[in-house]
């Protein structure tokens, strides 16, 4: 082991050095605290310091203090040399973080056991440092993976668009830990535009990966493989499946195991673009707000339904509504209404409905901005416990 001996009396320094060397250690020497510090900086192998108290320039107490203030990234075991009856030195030494004491004149046997004790502590510290380093590295990897998963999630999201006379806008705020919100929309054929929003239960990588897989499946617009259409043997050769049929298909395909319980709530809907007729199914997902700017009316489509993937052989209902040009459907995930203020009060549905009423005549983007601004003010901090998504659809009269 490398031991640094700090002593201003030359004869003492030589005597101590000889003893420590005889005990099998490599000895470094310093005549005062300042010199000791520069040697400790130059020699990272030194893990034990045996230091006198009274010295010029920097005494033993100041040296110990200086070592303990975090300037070294390794633990240095500090043994302070004190007079036989020096009670004050003991108290001050302990208070600045000395590990052990040796009375002068130094007893050979005592020095040996004190150094052994120091060696044990240093070995323990070293193994802790090693574990800590491994943990920090593992954590860094996990954090990087989470970040890249979060950006994958964002890259999967459909861009705001107008599809066959149906406008879509949204806001998505992922939680500090990766969540399982996902949404999308695309044309199923010339007359039908589908939209969906879903929220996989739980947080983290399993929920996020599951939401990616669901997105791939639902965003598949290819007529031959899409699960949103059914092939027929006579013209027009296919039919667009009703929302409750799509939800039931997903439910049969993804049954959660008792252990993972990866299930999801969702809204799935189809707009018949020439007419503005919308069919939609809610599967355990929060209600949709139907905003009608012309009349100032806001209706809650509070349909209930079992979440998807929970139990096999469940059934759902399809609701049909007739949109007029300018009508909007505001869909959101529960992270929004369950968003808690610093006083742990939830934002809640009534507040959201009120906001939508106030902003009903604003363009979609501004409506969303308004809601978002209020939510951030409610939260009072920039990190959120759950994903928050809102998706707004506006019927712009078909194409």
């Amino acid at each position, binding site marked *: 082991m490398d031991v640094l001996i700090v002593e201003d009396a030359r004869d003492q320094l030589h005597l101590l050095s000889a003893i420590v060397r005889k005990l099998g250690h490599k000895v470094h020497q310093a005549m005062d605290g300042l010199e000791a510090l520069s040697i400790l900086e130059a020699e990272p192998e030194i893990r034990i310091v045996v230091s006198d108290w009274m010295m010029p320039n920097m005494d033993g107490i100041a040296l110990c203090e200086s070592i303990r203030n975090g300037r070294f990234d390794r633990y240095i075991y500090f043994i302070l040399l004190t007079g036989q009856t020096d009670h004050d030195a003991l108290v001050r030494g302990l208070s600045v973080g000395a590990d052990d004491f040796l009375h002068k004149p130094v007893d050979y046997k005592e020095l040996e056991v004190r150094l052994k004790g120091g060696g044990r502590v240093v070995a323990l510290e070293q193994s802790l440092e090693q574990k800590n380093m491994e943990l920090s590295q593992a954590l860094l990897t996990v954090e990087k993976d989470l970040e890249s998963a979060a950006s994958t999630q964002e890259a999967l999201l459909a861009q705001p668009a107008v599809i066959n006379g149906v406008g879509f806008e949204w806001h998505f705020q992922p939680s500090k830990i990766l969540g399982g919100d996902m949404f999308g929309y695309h044309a199923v054929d010339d007359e039908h535009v589908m939209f969906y929003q879903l929220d996989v239960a739980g947080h983290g990588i399993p929920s996020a990966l599951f939401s990616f897989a669901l997105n791939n499946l639902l965003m598949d617009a290819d007529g031959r493989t899409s699960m949103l259409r059914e092939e027929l043997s006579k013209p027009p050769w296919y039919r667009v499946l009703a929302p409750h049929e799509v939800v039931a298909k997903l439910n049969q395909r993804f049954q959660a195991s008792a252990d993972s319980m990866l299930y999801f709530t969702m809204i799935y809907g189809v707009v018949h673009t020439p007419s503005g007729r919308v069919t939609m199914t809610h599967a355990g997902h929060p209600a949709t707000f139907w905003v009608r700017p012309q009349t100032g009316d806001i209706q809650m489509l509070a349909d*209930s339904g079992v979440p998807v993937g929970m*139990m096999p052989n469940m059934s759902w209902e399809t609701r049909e509504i007739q949109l007029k040009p300018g009508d909007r459907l505001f869909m959101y995930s529960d992270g929004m209404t369950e968003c808690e203020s610093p006083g742990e009060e939830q934002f809640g549905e009534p507040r959201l409905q009120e906001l939508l009423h106030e902003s009903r005549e604003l363009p979609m983007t501004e409506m969303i901005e308004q809601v978002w601004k209020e939510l951030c003010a409610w939260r009072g901090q920039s990190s959120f416990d759950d994903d928050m998504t809102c998706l707004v659809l506006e019927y712009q009269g078909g194409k």
Partner: protein
Amino acid sequence: MGYSNRQEADKTVVEIDEARLDASQATPFRDYMTDLISQGQRDLVLDLSQVDFMDSSGLGAIVGALKELNGDGSIQLAGPQKSVNDLFDLTCMDKIFTIHSSVNDALSGGIQ
């Protein structure tokens, strides 16, 4: 805090002494239920009257326990507070569980 159970009217009443049944409680709750089920308890009544918030993870934990019974036994839910009851309504939990307004109702066979 935590979970306890007692035998009453041939059923196992599980008392949930937690204000929130959420992601942080999902695993301890599931472990507790798994223990009970592996001990051979088959007819379970969950006393939810202390729970004032339940999220999707909490709901998943309850359904997970039902799946673990694999058709051999039952889980009845009793005494949900308003917010929990709203969640049950939204997710149609009455299609999966029998829900009672109180443990007494569950034990005497009454339905909410």
